[in-house]
């Protein structure tokens, strides 16, 4: 089975439908699947539920799908950087489900690992715990959280081989590996597809079994907060 596609549009062909659930990797704008997001925008798909730690910024990342009103609901941990998000949320056009970041990561990991629910201390005694099953283990109280899955996961990696084995780079890894496991279909966009056998099998972060389709993308890699230090003059 051939996993390598020409581009995002080809890779997403036949996978996209209105009302679907998508997981999109990335933390802020770091390690986001820029090309698949652009292709989803172009497809005109509507009513999306998007599971992603953040929601991009105005005009970039998932912000593009927001601007075009293609998102019905976001499942995120932090969405602070986006004015259009604010507008749509306050006007009731957009649904929002906040998850603590670690709970979100674990829900995705669990979903991909076939674990329907798990117990965590995070959020006990807060709004997050309301309506959730509480249970004590070894004298401490935990709440139950459920696993998450998606119709399609779109992830971004640094390198892949034609089998879909993925290697991520630095903090661009973030949510991408778990999301790759939790999509019914996972589409990976990468900077480079290398020859089979040229990735060290011991250094593969995501085994190819989790990746059904992949393509080489073009990346802007926009920086949210460019912070630098000055060189000291000797």
């Amino acid at each position: 089975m051939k996993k390598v596609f020409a581009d995002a549009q080809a890779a997403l062909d036949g996978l996209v439908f209105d009302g679907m659930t998508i997981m999109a990797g990335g933390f802020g704008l770091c390690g986001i699947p820029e090309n698949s997001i652009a292709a989803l925008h172009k497809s005109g798909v509507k009513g999306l539920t998007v599971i992603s730690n953040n929601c991009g910024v105005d005009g970039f990342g998932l912000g593009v799908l927001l601007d075009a009103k293609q998102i019905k609901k976001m499942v995120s941990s932090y969405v602070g950087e986006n004015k259009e998000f604010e507008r749509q949320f306050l006007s009731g056009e957009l649904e929002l489900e906040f998850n603590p970041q670690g709970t979100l990561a674990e829900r995705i990991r669990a979903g991909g690992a076939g674990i329907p629910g798990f117990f965590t201390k995070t959020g006990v005694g807060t709004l997050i715990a309301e309506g959730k099953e509480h249970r004590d283990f070894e004298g401490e109280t935990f709440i139950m959280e459920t696993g998450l899955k998606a119709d399609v996961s779109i992830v971004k990696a640094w390198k892949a081989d034609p089998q879909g084995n993925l290697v991520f780079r630095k903090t661009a890894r973030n949510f991408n590996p778990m999301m790759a496991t939790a999509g019914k279909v996972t589409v990976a966009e990468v900077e480079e597809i290398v020859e089979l056998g040229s990735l060290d099998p011991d250094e593969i972060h995501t085994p190819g079994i989790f990746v059904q389709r992949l393509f080489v993308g073009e990346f802007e890699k926009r920086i949210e907060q460019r912070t630098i230090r000055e060189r000291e003059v000797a």
Partner: protein
Amino acid sequence: MAWTRDEMAARAAQELEDGFYVNLGIGIPTLVANHIADDIDVTLQSENGMLGMGPFPFDDDVDPDLINAGKQTITELRRTSYFSSADSFAMIRGGHIDLSILGAMEISEKGDIANWMIPGKLVKGMGGAMDLVAGVKRVVVIMDHANKKGEPKLLRECTLPLTGQACVHRIITTLGVFDVVEDGLKLIELAPGATLALLAEQTDAKYTVADNLLEHEAA
């Protein structure tokens, strides 16, 4: 009179011990990194997936694939490792991080913390704060003693939605340092220029004053 933000950060840096793995929150807690003593070895964790966080890069070393949890560009060190968000929060939730230093809007005398949501105002989300306060071994808060309206932030009960329950161990404010103890708070240090009378006026939470109260002198 009282501690500045940078002085609070310097005081918070004294909480770090040799060999500690530490997560610093966004804002004032980030400043703590500038005050780490030279003779201790501390590893900073960034919850987006990095242990061994280095300083900001020089202009020509900026890498868009290398940011901290505040989405700022940073650098790696020789000890650095990268990992997924799931592994990152396994470190946090699993009690492997020694210390978390973060900011807060309100703290109760039971050590409850509220720092993510003001009802009626736009909510940006809790990010990793709920996981940090629930999972990290020791939680230290740095905050102004009173809010912008001059109202106390150390309260009998938090009025804002909680980030975590009974999870804060120590609070460093502009006016002093408090420990959360069994029956409320205990004032253990007084900032330069702060007085017990001023503290009484600006604190709603029940607290006692330590017998060996440390009164800092102005620098």
